[in-house]
């Protein structure tokens, strides 16, 4: 049961959810997410009202990631892409492996393949719940779920801005409270109550899982903020030495 569930989550659902390739008579509706993920840049040019893009779908990553307000279709596209992410697939796998090997947690599931699969499925389901709760909350409160980089050049401000983005929606004309991150973390933590054995099924352990999920979102926000700088520094380590 759990094996089938994990298999479906990992492989079948994303394939079914993916649009079919377009034909030449109707170009531009094939989903090609390229490699930018669902991130937005503060300096992306806003398209002018009335401007149209020829041969690209509304779910095109460039259109999603610019500063234009999100349409309902685009919100759904972000949600769909968040259901299957590399970090989701591999994160659940690594997390389940770590729990099995290092902590034998939960002990009732055992350390074999079956226990691993159940643990994997549970973690992936938690990730999907998080994506779903974030999507629905952002939709209900008209929040902008796209991450944004700080405009400040000072690193302390940037750390603070990334942390504040967990509670503030800066994608509006004026910053306003955002609830989708908190809702996603809570959904992620409490989803486990449907799967975990009773020893892990307390309110406290669910809250703990929510806290860890929220911490993961916070870490991602900080990583996203400093990603270009991290790669700049790492890139120099890979460069051959120069006399300059």
């Amino acid at each position, binding site marked *: 049961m759990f094996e089938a569930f994990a298999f479906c989550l990992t*492989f*079948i659902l*994303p*394939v079914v959810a*993916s649009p079919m*390739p*377009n034909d*030449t*008579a109707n*170009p*531009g*509706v*094939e*989903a*090609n*997410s*390229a*490699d*930018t993920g669902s991130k937005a*840049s503060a*300096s*992306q*040019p806003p*398209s*002018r009202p*009335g*401007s*149209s*893009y*020829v*041969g*690209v*779908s509304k*779910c*095109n*990553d*460039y*259109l999603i*990631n*610019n500063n234009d307000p999100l349409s309902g279709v685009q919100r759904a596209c972000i949600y769909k892409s968040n259901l299957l992410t*590399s970090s989701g697939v591999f994160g659940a796998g690594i997390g389940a492996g770590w729990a099995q090997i290092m902590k034998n947690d939960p002990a009732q599931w055992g350390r074999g393949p079956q226990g691993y699969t159940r643990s994997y499925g549970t973690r992936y389901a938690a990730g999907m719940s998080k994506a779903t709760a974030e999507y629905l909350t952002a939709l209900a409160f008209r929040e902008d779920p796209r991450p944004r*980089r700080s405009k400040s050049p000072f690193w302390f401000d940037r750390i603070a801005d990334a942390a504040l983005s967990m509670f503030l929606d800066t994608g509006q004309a004026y910053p306003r409270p955002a609830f989708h991150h908190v809702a996603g973390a809570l959904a992620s933590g409490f989803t486990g109550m449907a799967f975990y054995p009773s020893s892990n099924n307390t309110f406290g352990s669910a809250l703990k899982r929510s806290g860890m999920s929220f911490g993961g979102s916070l870490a991602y926000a900080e990583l996203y903020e400093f*990603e*270009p*700088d991290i*790669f*700049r520094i*790492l*890139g*120099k380590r*890979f*460069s*051959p*030495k*120069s*006399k*300059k």
Partner: protein
Amino acid sequence: MRNLLILFLLSSVLIDQSCYPVRAYRLASPVVTIDNGITLAFIEFDDNGELYDERKDANDLKSILERKELDQTIQKIQDLKESNKATGINVVVFVHGWKNNAGDSNNVAGFQAFLRQIHNSYADDQQRAPLMGIYIGWRGASVRVAKNFSYWSRTNAALRVAGPHMEEALYRIIHAVKSSQTGLTRSASIPEPKDSQSVDQTQTSNLILIGHSFGARVVEKAMTSYFENKILDFDGKHLQGCIAPPGSGADKGRLTKEGQIVSGWQRQTPDLTVLLNEAAPATHAKQFLEFLKCHGTVLLRAGEHFPLFLSITSDGDAATSIALPIGQAVARIELKTRAYGGSSDPPEIANQSTYYTHSAANIPALHSHELRSGPCLDGEKAVPFAKSILDRYSLCEVHYSGSTPYWNHTPYWITKIPVSIVPDHSDIFHPELYGFLSAFLPDKESLRSPMNPPVQRTRTLSVQ
């Protein structure tokens, strides 16, 4: 048995759906008009680097095969030139890179936004020339999942794409835009203009060629041959040896004497060729740099040094600074490299493997310029037309410490750009990028003055 069959069927569906098909996305309507009257054309290549052909008459198998996308693009260029003799036209060619194609790729949307930025910058100009963008597509995206593992497959595809068909496409575009005649070669399916001789001989159309990521590798490979031919053709240089053999030090002197003006260069080369976040080993660049140094080639525009290639890479580009060295280190298993011994030039690079495992922009010894925040350092020379890029950056010629002149003083300019202009490898179409490139573009006055070509090219010889 039943389970195996189900597993086989599921696997087949999974594999089929996780791959992008080999097909043209824009064959039905390769030339379209987006808002503001900007023309957008698509030219696509398959995984083997071939243009997509189509029967002129789909119902007649004996009808001629036509290269519909390329032919219609060339025809559109000629039509625009014909109807805008006074102003000429502005053409921007973009060759996309890894994880993109000509379908619903984010580069397709980004390129359209980029064209609008260019158009808007000339919005107050009543006499502005029409703008045309040409998106060159290939199978840069092959899989939908585990895309990073397609590195080796796509880098090889980029090499295949930079073949004779790509060269033909680029050269025809160059000649169609820059030549005063109407096109270099014409398909039998496209009729000759009735009054081809009436095309204004002095019109000044501008061509910008941009290659990104693996697309920059395509552009570099295709255009290097073109430039080499032009340089060797000039003044019988193909009969001469190096005036500055590599490692001799003879090329390190500053230019002191100008050679003769090469008439017609402005009609035969792009006005600007940009390699943006180039994802290619520096092997090719190193050889071309040596060629340029060997023949003492210098490109001047309005009396100032100007790049034949402008290779710019973001400081935040992890794909070329981290992933490419790792990917190339794996690919290097099947390659034998040699140590240069005492003949290494530049002296810092002692082994060929360094060129094979790094892109040119990630080898500081190959840099020709530095983009500095604020003015250039003491002793550095600022590029005159790029003294105030985005109101805060200066482009400065690189100098080694002490009195040693910089190694790369060729027209193959190589530099890094800060994350404030291009934040990473893929996120490229920003107003800041256009702001940076605009320093290299002809100004509005030049565009309005067809009798005064904006790009005057001179080839000079390096004399000690």
